[in-house]
């Protein structure tokens, strides 16, 4: 069996384990369905309050607008927010030693253990679309499917890259207790404020729009909204870089997402590798030394 196939088999083993754990808590499935339903309905209620205002290049349907925001939020929540707590779980459970002695790459256990979040969070994307469409009047168009698929891959890679940078801080910067500042500052401060989950970025003051230019969420949300929202413009620029570069906004979004993925994804893995090497030098791979 090839090395890659072996790694996939190990990821599958982790996934099965996570599935057993996940299904052992029977209430899980109900809580996450209710959670997505409530989240979507909150934004429906807000849309009733604000009415069908124009959102410029993104059309007029606020529920559709927010369903896309929620979807990226769910993907980002897993890819960016999950690697650090998963590494922490491996460490505190005392299993890092065993994983490091198995013939796996350094990264397979983290990816494998993340499966719980993937089965927990990714289906929420589909549910958000479903609830929005069934109950709250959301509607969607599929005008540039190639860009949508590419955008999903790129936002997945770039946010996972940031997630691995955050995970690397567990060993590299010794953030072993509680939360760590990288995902906190990015996820809970910068992205929450300027990512544009719930409002278009161009309503922000200019300095915050410039700050938004440095995170992949801004471009992914712009791309998906232009591609999926009925009545959205494919040509009218919204983001500062789209004004500066002055060509197709979707192409700008895609190029920036490619660049961010190419930088962040390998950087995250490299820093995590450095963290493990540091832990092996210092003897801090596992909590039991």
């Amino acid at each position: 069996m090839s090395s890659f196939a072996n790694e996939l088999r190990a990821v599958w083993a982790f996934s099965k384990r996570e599935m057993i754990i996940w299904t052992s808590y029977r209430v899980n499935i109900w809580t996450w369905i209710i959670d997505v339903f409530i989240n979507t309905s909150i934004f429906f209620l807000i849309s009733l309050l604000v009415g069908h205002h124009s959102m410029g290049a993104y059309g007029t349907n606020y529920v559709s607008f927010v369903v896309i925001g929620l979807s990226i939020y769910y993907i980002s929540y897993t890819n960016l927010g999950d690697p650090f707590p998963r590494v922490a779980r491996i460490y505190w459970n005392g299993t890092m030693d065993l994983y490091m002695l198995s013939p796996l790459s350094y990264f397979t256990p983290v990816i494998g253990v993340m499966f719980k979040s993937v089965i927990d969070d990714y289906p929420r994307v589909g549910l958000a679309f479903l609830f929005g469409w069934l109950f709250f009047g959301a509607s969607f168009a599929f005008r540039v499917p190639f860009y949508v698929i590419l955008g999903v891959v790129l936002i997945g890679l770039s946010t996972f890259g940031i997630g691995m940078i955050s995970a690397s801080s567990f060993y590299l910067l010794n953030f072993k207790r509680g939360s760590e500042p990288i995902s906190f500052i990015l996820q809970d401060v910068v992205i929450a404020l300027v990512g544009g989950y719930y409002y278009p970025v161009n309503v922000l003051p200019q300095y915050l729009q410039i700050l938004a230019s440095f995170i992949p969420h801004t471009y992914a949300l712009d791309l998906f909204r232009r591609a999926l929202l009925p009545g959205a413009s494919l040509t009218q620029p919204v983001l500062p870089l789209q004004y500066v570069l002055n060509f197709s906004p979707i192409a700008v979004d895609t190029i920036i997402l490619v660049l961010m993925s190419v930088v962040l994804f390998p950087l995250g893995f490299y820093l995590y590798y450095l963290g493990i090497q540091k832990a092996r030098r210092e003897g801090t791979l596992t909590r039991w030394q």
Partner: protein
Amino acid sequence: MYAISTSSLTKIYQTVPDDAKAHVRGVKERGPGLWVKNIFKLRTQKMRKIVAVRDLSFSVEVGEIFGIIGPNGAGKTTLIKLLSGLLYPTSGNAKILNYDLLDDHEKVKDKIAYVSTSGWMGLEWQLTAYENLLFYADLLKIPRKEAKTALDDVIESLGMVGYVGKTIPQLSAGMRQMLTIARGFIANRPIIYLDEPTTSLDPFAKEKMWNFVLKLKKNHSIIFSSHDPKELKGYADRIMIIKNGKSLIVSKPQILLKEFSTGRIYQAELSNADLSDFNETIRIIDAFSLGNKKLKLRFTLKGSLNDFITFLLYKKIVIHNITRDSPSISDVYARFVNE
């Protein structure tokens, strides 16, 4: 500090004549499973550098069981982690079945099994014992059919049949420990490290584990650390005593007992006695109070036996019995560690 290259390790080993190695170690020579030279580890603890392992050199043959004993914090676990590649040495190196520990760590990983029974043992609490073993078999890339055969064999041999269907919280500490040991054996790796494997095991479980290890011995190099001198004497072909990261001696148990046990050892049961009475006349190894000023002592004499009996009579101490006792590895260990 001392660093050594792979080629020089091989050269050094090759200079030792084969018959001499076999003679000294008392095992049939099959070549070294493991060869360690000047391994040294500095660790930082609260901004202070401490020596965890100090310049250790030794080798372990294929077919040999090598025991390590030392006080808490002596460096046993650190040494085993160094030899597993979980820790990088500050200097020195080792060869594991001819693979360089540092340069060929990916290959070394395929050759070793590491059983640690400390902490939470890395068990998955929501899974059954069997699912835990199967999960690790998958991670170790053992084909499913082979894994099931290996699992059945290990489960049967270690007496785990009755509880493999239970989840981890339903298992006793000893059962969990046995599961950790079973996990280490399923891949049938030629080098096996057992870090205090029997700490929580009852005597029957210990015996089962050791019977299984002895079955594997022929084609494996087994290194284990323990605090139980009886276990070391019973199963180790050679013993290394370490203290403060430094090897005090490496030798066969018989040689340790013959050459390094402390004089003649006696055992006595006495009444109307106080421990402080004996400072001048004997060196106490072990003492147990049996109540009512009755003591059971294990000791060596500072003078003659006649002098000691005269002393007891003079102090009006009642003598229930005094017998000769054989020296144990524990005595040798105490002597090295206390000196």
